[in-house]
């Protein structure tokens, strides 16, 4: 076991500092050390996508990264999406279109969809499916999720133009 190291990073705009073993996974650091349990672990081997967060604006699997590797990074997790009591339009669309059942894949799905809409603000249905295929959902059959992302794209695009 090696000596603990200091990790400094920003999560949802808040600066954090913690000490952990160099081998600690970023997802464990987020969940255990920072107490942000919205980010989930579904496989710990980089396939299910439940642990997806945004690192410096881009979707990444926090189970495939060490906390030390994220030193100095800006991280966004599901907890940062809503402002006050108001859901983000993407979250609102997931609710409206029944884009979640158990909710376990949902944080990773939301962060992945957010990244997709940033890169491709008006995706076709096929592009949405391709984009979210990075996250596995066992409950929904993906139908509600695809509908939700389509609907969110419609709301988010005009909002950006303003």
């Amino acid at each position: 076991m090696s000596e603990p190291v200091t990790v400094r990073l920003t999560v949802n705009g808040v600066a954090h500092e913690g000490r952990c073993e160099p081998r600690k996974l970023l997802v464990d650091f987020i969940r255990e050390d920072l107490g942000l349990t919205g980010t989930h672990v579904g496989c710990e081997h980089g396939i299910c996508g439940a642990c997806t967060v945004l690192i410096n604006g881009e979707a990444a699997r926090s189970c495939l990264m060490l906390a030390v590797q994220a030193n100095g990074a800006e991280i966004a997790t599901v907890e940062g999406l809503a402002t006050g009591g108001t859901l983000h339009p993407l979250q609102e669309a997931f609710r409206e279109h029944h884009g979640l059942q158990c909710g376990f894949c949902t944080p990773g799905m939301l962060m992945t969809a957010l990244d997709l809409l940033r890169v491709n603000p008006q995706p076709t249905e096929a592009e949405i499916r391709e984009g979210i295929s990075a996250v596995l959902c066992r409950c929904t059959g993906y139908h509600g999720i695809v509908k939700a992302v389509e609907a969110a794209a419609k709301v988010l695009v005009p909002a950006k133009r303003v």
Partner: protein
Amino acid sequence: MTSEGWIGKPVTRVEDARLLTGRGTYIDDLPMPHAHHAAIVRSPYAHARILGYDVRAALAMPGVVGVVTGADVAAKTKPFAVGVTSPVHYYCTATDKARFVGEPVAVVVARDRYTAEDAAELVQVDYEPLPAVVDPERALDADAPVLHEKVGTNLANHRRLVYGDPDRAFAEAEVVIRERFRFPKIGSTPIETYGIVARWDPIDEVLTIWANFMGPFIMHPLTARVLGLPENRMRLIVPQDIGGSFGIKTSMFPYIALIGLTAMTTGVTVKWIEDRREHLLASSSGTDRVAYRELAAKKDGTILGMRFRWYDNVGGYIRSPEPGCSYRPLGNYVGPYRFQHLEVEASTVMTNKSLTGPNRGYACGHLYFESERMVDLLAEKLGMDPVAVRKKNLIATDAFPYRTPTGGLYDSGDYAGAFDRALEMARYDELRREQAKARAAGRYVGIGIALAVDPSVSNMGYVATALDPQFRAKPEYLAKSGAMEAATVKVDPLGRVTAILGTTPQGQGHQTIVSQIVAHELGLTPRDVTVVDEMDTFTRIWSISSGTYSSRFGSVGTSATALAARKLRTKLVEYGAHLMSLPVDEVEWREGAVRAKSGKGASYTIKDLAGRGHWNTESLPEGIEAGLQATAVFHFDVAKAVDEHDRVNSSNTYGFIAEVMAVEVDPRTGAVKILRYVTVHDAGTIINPLIVEGQIYGGALHGLGGALYEDMQYDADGQCLTATFMDYLVPTACEAPTIDIAHVSSPSPLTTLGSKGLGESGTMTVPAVVANAVSDALAPIGVRINELPINPSALWARIHQAGGPDMAPRTPHSLGASRETRDAPRSAG
């Protein structure tokens, strides 16, 4: 909104706000100060004798507080009761031998998970490897390695069930069809794995367990017995949110015993969160099955009888509720058809694979895959349209309630109506014309049909079919039956309504549904109702059948809720009448208040009544129980024990599914493309169509996974080849079809609101409909599907063997929205 307002409305879910903002409470999120962590040492061998353990190095590691081995388990716990009479000793870890790869052999507890995992690697287990067997038919050969010496054979259970006179049916048959089928070992793999926290209080001698366990709670007394605890000293609490389950989290009870024992032994709070590899190696799946089927019919297509011969592979030990793999669908063995003569020979076989248990659609995906293929083979043999053969044999709409020859009581239905609806939606005749054109152009387009009776709310009594009638006739044998659920609805002192249940939702939106029902019955809006739906065996009303499995909530949970709300309403009406000094029959509950039928005088809302009833009990009428609450326990009286002729109503409500699917097979790659997929469901009264649609989509994709991709594979030595999501292929959004959904409604006469369960839905039909569609597509070259999954390489090989049609490249066509199936494992990116 009036009290007529909330049943059938697509109300958005109350659960969603917390789940969308990362504020869910799943097992791994519970704050557990000072919890230590467990890491499980697992057998690398499929079959090996355990000669000894050396735990010194693990114990010497800083941060390690204890190690529990199979030797401790053998000394301190009892084996679990199994559902058969063979002497199978199933403990929560391996004791004498390991019988599958991944079987727990020891547990290490340390201050954190990283340390526990390091220490687990230092545990030395001395194994003597033994030959393994993984195929259920091979396992019954005289020279096959025997897993359990005390049993002396790998056959855990065997029953021959006879209904009517199948021998005569086959003797009189004008046509007999025979076929062999294989169904794969599949697991619904919820994205959240198993998780358990255990705390032992040595003073009060109470073991508190938190677990994402879905029930049935029959496993609670069984587990308490294993640990030598009185039931009321083992508190089992299920967190509010479970990250999916699909039957799989039924089978975590051995880990509840193991982690419980570990907490009792080490004296610390122990937490264990399974990882994905552990889940794929050693949690649970459905059985892989070899089936031999025979069908007897007349030339006009009338089915006279069937014979089923099953070899269900339950892995290293038969674990409860197995052999439900053979008997869960007993009452609906005949599906939607009228035939009266049936013989079932069910062999439950133990091999060196991981253990099995309920998996969404429990045993019905297997059943209908075989039966619906057989019906298509009959149609093919007779040169009839598969629609016509089915129509010839359907149970008539005026025959309900219908008693099946195996004892099932189909409560309601209109099978012909639902089937017609599906054919209309698919434009079946037109589809056949398009198919003819496509065939003429050298394309492999096929149309499949599948019908299924969709059983919900299992009657616990079916499990006893595994025992023979002589055994069940013994005076000391205790019969089993039942399916019940409880709900409480209460009004707080300022008039707010709370409903309390002990079900274990895993994404089905129980809070939303309960709030709709209570609002509906009491003239409120769903937002007015707070729903607490968390299981705690110390505080909830429960029984052995409690839990959320077997699509039960839609029938039994909803009924208990409606009954409790009505009971409360009756009480409020009596109280209101008393305050108004009117006889009860001169007042009524209207628009959320007690009002005189005459329309004159005062009215009393819930708030008014709460303000008086709680604060001034003197105002209550004489003889009424104080407090504004009501509890109802709903149970089905059609749930009876299995009779001496092996007949049992194995479920309590029975819905119906009719599906039509069109596919195109690419003969060059073996890929299957879904061109059209129609599903029509009859689940009686629908309470929330949004949630129902979600269940249908989810069930269909689980079914499609089993039909086209998923397969827990083992090599001949019993090594699992699919222990990661790289190898065990779960469909992504790119493989998910778009579905045309419709409903017909035959309300159940047995449930309070007329609803039936439908949570398992497409898992029962999709394997059948895909197999029929692909067989139809490849009929010109004589390839018939009798094995799943139909993955591209297997299908390509079959097409090739059949002489392979024209292998020249061609441009794919499309009849509608479609998607290619995936051929390769996805990348990790």
